[in-house]
């Protein structure tokens, strides 16, 4: 089956030739919704995340030798696909349960300004979070990483997660996290209402030429939505 699919594949498909789709604005309203479809394909967790690196040796030594994650796969290839693509190495470290963290090393290329590490929340928003099964394991990571010389954040308890954070030699943020409890039906419902409140007030303010400026506005609309919700019989 997989072979036939590949024989049908064409290198001149719109995915390859009409590249403007990669950067243009998308009109979500023109797309078909999952809820209105008869099929719903399923996912089964993370296979890998990948980022570029300009520090080959340091990245390998950090993930394999300092963190101790097994290097499980490496691709080394001539540049292919889009024009100007350099030759590259693509390598994968095992992060448990089949998930890997991967890097691209683009041979002969230089780090550009855009990929320089920053001490800013916009930058750290893109991160990898690995899970651990127990509080003991989380503590073990913190003390072990500190003993190995890394700067690790204090424990941070979010609502359903307890996390520690550190950075790799590229400056990429890594999180190790413990699920404190399972998410229940009411969590899903609450998530929906919070975002519904946010979308509503954002739309309304935008219509007035203003913008959403604080979370208080969302919390106040949320109160209205919860009131309506619990008032229903």
């Amino acid at each position: 089956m997989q072979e036939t699919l590949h024989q049908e594949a064409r290198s001149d498909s719109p995915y390859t030739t009409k590249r403007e789709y990669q950067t243009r604005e998308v009109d979500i309203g023109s797309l078909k919704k999952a809820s209105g479809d008869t099929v719903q394909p399923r996912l089964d967790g993370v296979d890998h995340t990948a980022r570029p690196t300009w520090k080959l040796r340091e990245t390998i030594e950090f993930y394999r030798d300092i963190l101790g994650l097994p290097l499980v796969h490496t691709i080394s290839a001539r540049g292919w696909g889009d024009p100007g693509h350099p030759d590259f190495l693509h390598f994968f470290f095992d992060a448990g349960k089949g998930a890997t963290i991967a890097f691209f090393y683009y041979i002969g290329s230089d780090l550009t300004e855009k990929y320089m590490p920053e001490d800013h929340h916009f930058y750290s928003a893109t991160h990898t979070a690995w899970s651990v099964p127990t509080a003991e394991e989380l503590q073990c990571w913190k003390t072990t990483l500190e003993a190995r010389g890394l700067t690790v954040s204090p424990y941070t308890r979010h609502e359903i997660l307890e996390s520690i954070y550190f950075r790799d030699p590229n400056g990429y943020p890594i999180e190790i996290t413990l699920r404190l409890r399972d998410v229940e039906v009411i969590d899903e419902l609450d998530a929906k209402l919070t975002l519904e409140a946010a979308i509503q007030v954002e739309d309304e303010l935008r219509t007035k030429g203003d913008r959403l400026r604080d979370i208080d506005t969302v919390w106040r609309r949320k109160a209205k939505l919860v009131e309506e919700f619990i008032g229903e019989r």
Partner: protein
Amino acid sequence: MVVLYVLDVKEFLPIVETARKISDWTVSKSDKGYYRISSPTEIVLNRKAMKMKPAVWYGLFTGGMNGEIAEFGREEVRVIGTNRAL
């Protein structure tokens, strides 16, 4: 009047426990997963008294808040009544 809605999950239960100790405030529980806390005047909560970590504290009113935050510090928050539409 100030009204808070609190989702019935353990992270936010300290708000409910605090509210129950204050005679002026009313606490009711809906069968749909939310507590409703109301105060005729204002609601003042203290982080350390509720043993809350900062990352949860700063999301304190995620369940919904009918009122206006007069002060939101690292240790104490004060919500007052308002006539503004929700």
